[in-house]
């Protein structure tokens, strides 16, 4: 671990000042400390924000949900409001990491996770995320777990978060506070595809701090759920995962929100699937036809070609699970 200073922020204002001076925010620390030990992360100054009053979870006036950035994963998963309004959020959290990690990790940190890639974590390997221009080891290397969507010649790593897949499906907003005041941006624009700048992972300006994530109200009744396919039954990242939310009225799908994980460099919204569903009646055929569009644009690598078909099947399965009881 490289030497660093450590301070504790007692107010959001104080945190932002420290952040503006180059401090790195630390909350649960479950990603950052790990990566500091591997010397992937080498912050000079840590600003501990865990004492800030940003852990409220509450329903918004018209039926949305606002989750404070410092709410712990375990607490959010257990929250009755969350479980009632957006069960997919609780499901995704419960399928994430381990109980110990969920007790420590925060929602803001979850969204801020660094990419999942063995070469990224190994400082002796070239990696464009860590060292822009050094090359991507995964492109020609072992890339079974890597992305098939949103990749570039500079990076093919997946975003590891389960929660962010649900937030992406539900079109959540990221609320930030920074030196220039408050700002909000849709999560689909907040998380950045690698493109030519793989080292830029979020639309976050110097000193900006995530304060909350907000899921907008969706028409009710709403069914939602999260399905995660993985090698191991517990404590394992997704090979593929799918978040689905459906509003079905009068036997017709009026609203469909679908996103996938484990396949994209960011959580991958599936608008073609959504469009195919809206206005149609639930049926096994519909799920299959819609799922056919799930891997549109996929560019598989040597070892992850199976994800293309697995993604379609995961989408089909989860559409049936969520929408099947019509």
């Amino acid at each position, binding site marked *: *671990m*490289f*030497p660093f200073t450590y301070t504790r922020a007692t107010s959001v204002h104080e945190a932002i000042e420290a952040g503006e001076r180059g401090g790195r925010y630390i909350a649960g620390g479950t990603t950052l400390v790990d990566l500091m030990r591997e*010397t992937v992360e080498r912050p000079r100054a840590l600003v501990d924000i865990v004492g800030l009053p940003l852990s409220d979870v509450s329903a918004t006036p018209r039926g949305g949900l606002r989750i404070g950035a410092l709410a712990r994963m375990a607490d959010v998963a257990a929250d009755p409001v969350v479980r009632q309004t957006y069960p997919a959020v609780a499901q995704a959290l419960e399928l994430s990491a381990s109980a110990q990690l969920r007790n420590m990790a925060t929602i803001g940190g979850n969204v801020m996770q660094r990419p999942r890639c*063995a*070469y990224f*974590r*190994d*400082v*002796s*390997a070239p990696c464009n995320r860590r060292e822009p221009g050094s090359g991507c*080891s995964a492109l*020609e*290397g*072992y890339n079974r777990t890597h992305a098939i969507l949103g990749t570039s010649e500079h990076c093919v790593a997946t975003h590891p978060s389960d929660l962010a897949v649900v937030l992406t499906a539900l079109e959540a907003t990221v609320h930030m506070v920074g030196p220039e005041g408050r700002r909000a941006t849709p999560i689909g624009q907040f998380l950045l595809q690698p493109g030519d700048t793989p080292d830029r992972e979020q639309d976050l300006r110097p000193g900006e701090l995530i304060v909350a994530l907000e899921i907008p109200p969706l028409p009710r009744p709403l069914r939602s759920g999260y399905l995660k*396919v993985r*090698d*191991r*039954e*517990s*404590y*394992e990242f997704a*090979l593929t995962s799918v978040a689905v939310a459906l509003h079905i009225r009068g036997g017709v799908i009026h609203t469909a929100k679908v996103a996938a994980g484990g396949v994209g460099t960011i959580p991958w919204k599936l608008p073609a699937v959504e469009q195919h569903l809206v206005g149609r009646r639930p049926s096994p055929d519909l799920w299959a036809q819609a799922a056919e569009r799930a891997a549109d644009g996929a560019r598989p690598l040597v070892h992850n070609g*199976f994800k293309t*078909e*697995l993604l379609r*099947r*995961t989408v089909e*399965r989860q559409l049936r699970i969520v929408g099947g009881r019509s």
Partner: protein
Amino acid sequence: MTPQPAPRPARQPQAAVGTPRSRVDGRLKVTGQARFAADHGPADGIDGIVHAVLVDATIGRGRITSIEARAALAVPDVLTVIHHGNAPRLPYRDNSFPDSIHPPGERLRAFQDNHVRFFGQPVAVVVATTLEAARHAARLVEVTYDAEPPQLDLVTAPAHEPDIYTRGDAAAALASAPVQLEMTYRMGRNHHNAMEPHAIVARWDGDRLTVWEKTQWVADPRNELAAVFGIPQAAVRCYSRFVGGAFGNSGRTWVHSVAAALAARELRRPVKLVLSRRQLYFGIGFRPAYEYGVRLGSERDGRLTAVVHDVRGETSRYERHSDDLALGRMLYDTPNFRQDVRLVPLDVNTPTWMRGPGWSTTATALETSLDELAHELGIDPIELRIRNEPADDPATGQPFSTRRLHECYTTGMREFGWHRRSSRPRAVREGDWLIGMGMAAGAYPAESAPAQAHARLGADGTVVVRSASSDMGPGTTTSMAQVAADALGLPMWSVQFQLGDSMMPPAPVHALAWTMASVGSAVQATCDRLRRKAVALAVGDDRSPLHGVPADEVVVRRGWLHTRADPRRGETYQQLLARNGRTHLEAVGGYEPPEEIRYSMYAYSAIFAEVAVDARLGIVRVRRMLGVFDAGRIVNPKLADSQAHGGMIGGLGQALLEHTVTDPRDGRILNANLADYLVPTNADATDIRAIYIEGVDNEAAPIGVKGLGEVVQVGVAPAIANAVFNATGRRVRDLPITPEALLMPR
């Protein structure tokens, strides 16, 4: 063979042996009071300890062209950086002691040249007064290399000359067999992933070296470090009281231990070195990957007429590690058998034993191929095995000491509900899940080795028994106390078994499932001798109530020496010693295996598995497993369950999860951590049960055991693979079985 009654000259009642006792050191372990290698320090009189951290090579093969340590040495608290450029040349005598467990070849040396033989090889060691400084400085050591492409392909790399076993004429028998099958199985490389990382504390006192080491055998660090530093074995002492799991990777002494001892000698200070989790994938061995070509010839009724195994297994370029791949020779009655084993030297660190070494590997090939034959012939897999059950060992012609494999099958069929299995694959569906059952058999040699023990009965009536064994997790400390307690007629609480000190009476390496047969027999012999000493003292003492009683009429129960006829006539050990003015009685004893082995001696397993496969998504879940074991006497059923469950969970990992991934370009291990190298979690291993076929094997060991710790993993992986076939109709011949191998068309 019908089991014969145990020779029990003592005729002591059995009170502790055979009962499910909790670990005597369980409380110490769960409360953090058990001190493992890295926990040693000032409390043990080791003052001024400093911390060593290894620098690992970042190429797969080549030479070091420069090492720049200035930045590392500039870190406050850093004391030294040792590498091939400044390390003293060490004597490195051969460690060719009669009981050496080091494989043939030229062992890897600590900082003696600029060669890099594998990715992650230690190229330098940084020592500092704080661990943080040492870790940080290790990152700052700049090493440049002249790298060459490593050879890492098991299938295409040139192999050593084959090791050939043959009986009959397998080629001819195969060619004329009415049924012929040919398959190739591949098994991925596995790492042990014990909970406790390898660790050592090394301290020199003049020319004497003391190490607190994680090891399965305190004699090996003593022997190896003595050889490396050119000092007498008696000048090295090794302690290892607790071991937090090892599974075979702590049998031999690895190069990091030499690095720690070298640093301690250079600095004249005690040095602690703990490998990081990542480093545990680099230099402490692994279960080698195998490619296993199998050809079977059989009659239409399933009787095997020919078996041919063509095997390729990986080893390093500098040593030849060879697993014992003998299961195929003895499990079935095959007149014609040929096995060619080719070791393929690769640019990897030397593999080593891993639970069920060799035997679990062969079981995967052999037992999957039997399942394929059963399917081909339309014969139940168990019936097929029974039809090929040998009367005597087909490899040696010797009679079996005990072989209750048939009983394992029938018990397993009944308890598992084998009759509910559909013989037609892909016939049972529950929603999205296809359900299947599979089974496999296994065996592991019931061997033993010379061992000695010392027992001391104190005036307070308690006993301390000592032997230089280890306890990597099976509960040796507990089970030996059970053996000693019964031999001495004492309650468990007044017996203590101590191990893990190379100055204790010698014991063999704590491996190969032979500790109870070897050390257990030595403990029993020693404690029998001690009891007889006490009895002799009593019957010869005219003040004793037992005076004049024939010695073999005296038994001891709960510390009370009495005549067999009249339990009231007797006295306690305390009374006996006090009256005779003795502070203690002691005895040394041992066990020597018979020189001539007249029987074929093995422990056996029959493993049953039920899996659910989501055929659309490729997910496999093991719903339940049953292991039925013929392991001779079970000393402690609770500890046995712990062993059996652990072994079966290990087999589950082999079947479905575990696979060390190496980048062929530079040998980089890509899943060198417990998040990416997948071992089963509790959620993966829900319903696991073990049954032990009752019986003792008095040929295998005086105390009737055949060894359990290895056989519990033999046959598990093929049972699961066979269940996957039964569920899906898809035969996956590469382990681990991954979702992508099972994604089926609609």
